[in-house]
């Protein structure tokens, strides 16, 4: 299969250098070629599962239980100011 690795990389928000694209492109095609054997399995009428157990994932009450930890939670951010995350300018 011919895969446009640069396009897939852009969907993944990963910049690839030309060298990386040249290496990863054929490997990706090789992996996808391998998993294509799935098409030979008869799955007519088989329900897909996303989770190994047939249980509804329970939701807990939407309530704060651990207090205001903004400073601790923002500590690992590359750049913050006045409790806000700072990113490059989005609007010209």
């Amino acid at each position: 299969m011919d895969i446009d690795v640069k396009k897939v990389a852009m969907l993944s928000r990963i910049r690839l250098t030309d060298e990386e694209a040249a290496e990863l492109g054929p490997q990706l095609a090789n992996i996808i070629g391998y998993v294509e054997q799935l098409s030979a399995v008869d799955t007519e009428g088989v329900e897909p599962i996303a989770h190994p157990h047939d249980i509804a994932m329970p939701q807990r009450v939407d309530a704060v239980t651990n207090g205001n930890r903004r400073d601790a939670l923002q500590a690992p951010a590359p750049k913050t100011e006045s409790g806000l995350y700072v990113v490059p300018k989005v609007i010209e």
Partner: protein
Amino acid sequence: MPFSTLSEIKDRLDAGEATAVAVAKIYLDRIAAFNGDLNAFVDINPAHVLEQAEASDAYRAKHGARALEGLPIAVKDIFCTQDGPTQCCSNILKDFHAPYDAHVITRLKEAGAVLVGKTNMDEFAMGSSTETSAFGPCRNPWDIERIPGGSSGGSASAVAAALTPAALGTDTGGSIRQPASVCGITGLKPTYGRVSRRGIIAFASSLDQAGPMTRSVKDAAMIAAAISGHDSMDSTSVPDAPAIDWLGACDKTDMKGLRIGKPKEYFVDGMDTGVRAAMDTALAECEALGAEIVDISLPHTDAAVAAYYVIAPSEASANLSRYDAVRFGHRCDNPDDLTDMYTRSRDEGFGTEVKRRILTGTFALSSGYYDAYYIKAQQVRTLIRQDFIDAFKTIDVIATPTSPVTAFKLGEKTDDPLTMYLSDIFTIALNLAGLPGLSQPCGFVDGLPVGLQWIAPAWREDQILNAASAYESATDWVKAPVNFGGET
């Protein structure tokens, strides 16, 4: 002492023959002496280890011992800990300090364990050899030119060389069992939903599960008992999981009445002849202990690796989208704009294998391919799960080799990702089905350990522990590597 089991150390502590501080010092000395050869630990803070040990001794003196009082346990670099860095062996999380403890870390602390440090792993747990770590490859104490398996290779190597008596790993497609197998120790992956995933850096959320890596079956049960249980903060943690008697299940010394399934799809050409011979001997031993070996079939086994390499990368591509250089993680210098910041930070931060998996997953989930790959793989997942459900109607446990080969040499498979993926051929199916599995030592080929894998129905870890304990009591395959202080 160093090659003692956790249970033996516990007995000595309980008898007052040793203190947690003395025990911690033994392992800290060994880490100082041997970690340079193995690169099993990527972060260690001896002063903090000793502080915990002192606190444990004080707790014992005042209140008595908790379940894991004073016992040293190392954890894979994938578990968030408030103390020290949590980096998942990736440059994108370089110097990341987690603002909270993983649920299992809290459980270990509450049980009185002394956390030794962070162990090496494949970057984001993506690999089978611990060669994709941003901190350099980890090595196998049985032959340092060989890989310790992966992705929990650091935990396996550290336990095998007795740099710690026990460790935690995580298992998405075999990442506890395969390294346990090739390093000659015991590794248990619990039933999916048994152990909370909160605070474990996510790889493939419908497959990931944490578990113990130890020198004995009972040690694995001790740790599993401490870390399992419902956590309301993880929506995939099962609230009414059937309880089992973890330690009681380890008292078995025979296999009378046990029906062991031997799946024909797991005993095929391509398996190392030495591994096959070790398996044949192990199954004969089980028969001698009273078990009945039953030939079974798991017809969709061949499709498991392909289904896994659609589902796991798809989930990974979604999970790893969180590394956006905004809230945490590496940010590139002087980004031109937002897109440049995302794409360049992620290019710089992720290693090649992680990129490969993200790209594979993104492709499988992309418009026009979603049905053919992702939905198809989920349907095959249903069939694989059904294979196991059908098989367990007539048998109690399944026995297979954990890995078709013993530890391979560093660099041997790094050029061909697909060959590396096939290392997990015997471990992947049960992750897809959510079942518990355990690997224990069952022999050596040319000085390298071989692992025996046990599989049970969901929530029946006790059946695995019964079989593995009986096998362990009748055999003597838990050894200490000579170059790391073991006897010849």
